[in-house]
């Protein structure tokens, strides 16, 4: 009886620890926030971005004279090519603001996709940066990676 109780407790502890590790991985922060500015146009490249992961642009940018930032996005699937579509979200952040101020989602693309988007109504004296989130798959280990480039102008 004692041995069974001990075994049960050991299994319980292992399960709890495993849950903690998985929870931590799923809530991992994207890459570090950008600390310096760069002139536009600038092209950021993304390679093998895992499912349920995000990556920030390396720099932040001033909007153009029309108080907007235009992005030209070129994405392609990588990793497990199982016919499952990829889903990507591009978020716009403003310096000094914790939450994203705008975003747009590219739903269910297979193979590759190209598109453009303009973030408008930005503040001329402020600076902005992007985060690219790979929302494909249900876990980080699904292998549904994303590659691509984003030109910011």
């Amino acid at each position, binding site marked *: 009886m004692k041995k069974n109780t001990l075994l049960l407790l050991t299994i319980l502890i292992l399960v*709890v*620890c495993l849950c903690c590790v998985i929870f931590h991985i799923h809530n991992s922060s994207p890459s570090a926030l950008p600390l310096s500015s760069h002139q536009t146009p600038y092209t950021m490249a993304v390679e093998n971005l895992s499912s349920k992961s995000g990556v920030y642009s390396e720099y932040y940018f001033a909007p153009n004279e029309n108080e907007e930032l235009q992005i030209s996005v070129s994405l392609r699937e990588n990793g497990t090519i199982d016919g499952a579509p990829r889903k990507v979200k591009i978020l716009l952040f403003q310096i000094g603001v914790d939450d994203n101020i705008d975003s747009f989602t590219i739903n269910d693309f297979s193979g590759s996709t190209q598109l453009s988007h303009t973030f408008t109504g930005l503040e001329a004296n402020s600076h902005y940066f992007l985060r690219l989130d790979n929302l494909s798959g249900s876990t980080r280990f699904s292998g549904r990676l994303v590659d691509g480039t984003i030109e910011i102008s």
Partner: protein
Amino acid sequence: MKKIIALVLSCIFILSMSLPAYATESATDIVGISGNESAIVPFAATKPTSSHSLPYAMTITNLTEQHSTYSRYYFAPGSTESLTISGNLWPSGTEDGVARNVKILLFQVQNDNIIDSYTVNGITEKQFIAHTFTGLDTDSHYYFRIDNMNSHPPYANRYVSGSITVI
């Protein structure tokens, strides 16, 4: 029984080791600065969200004890890779002859850690201050936080006021 207790204790220990990892994920609170400064409450609770060209004159009016205020804008250090602050600080509130102590902290945008700081102690009258923060990144931007380090007695208001130009 001892083994069970040992296992439970081990479990608590392992879980407690995991907790700080979660805490870092949400460590964006601007008040969360370690050391004695944790008691300082930002008077202007938001960090600046836009830039301003230099020079820029900022005014501090009746900054209360154990409170702080951010500069309204962030600034580019330019080719000199430095930012200079120059101006005056003076005691306000109750005129009790007690010196005011002020700390001026420099932050880099997107980075909650203090880059540098400059402390002015013993302000009993209008006092000229000047300081240059050097070694800054030309492509980055920086902002200031001004802390009133005085304690707040029940019978006096040891405020600080000032006018500081960022160059």
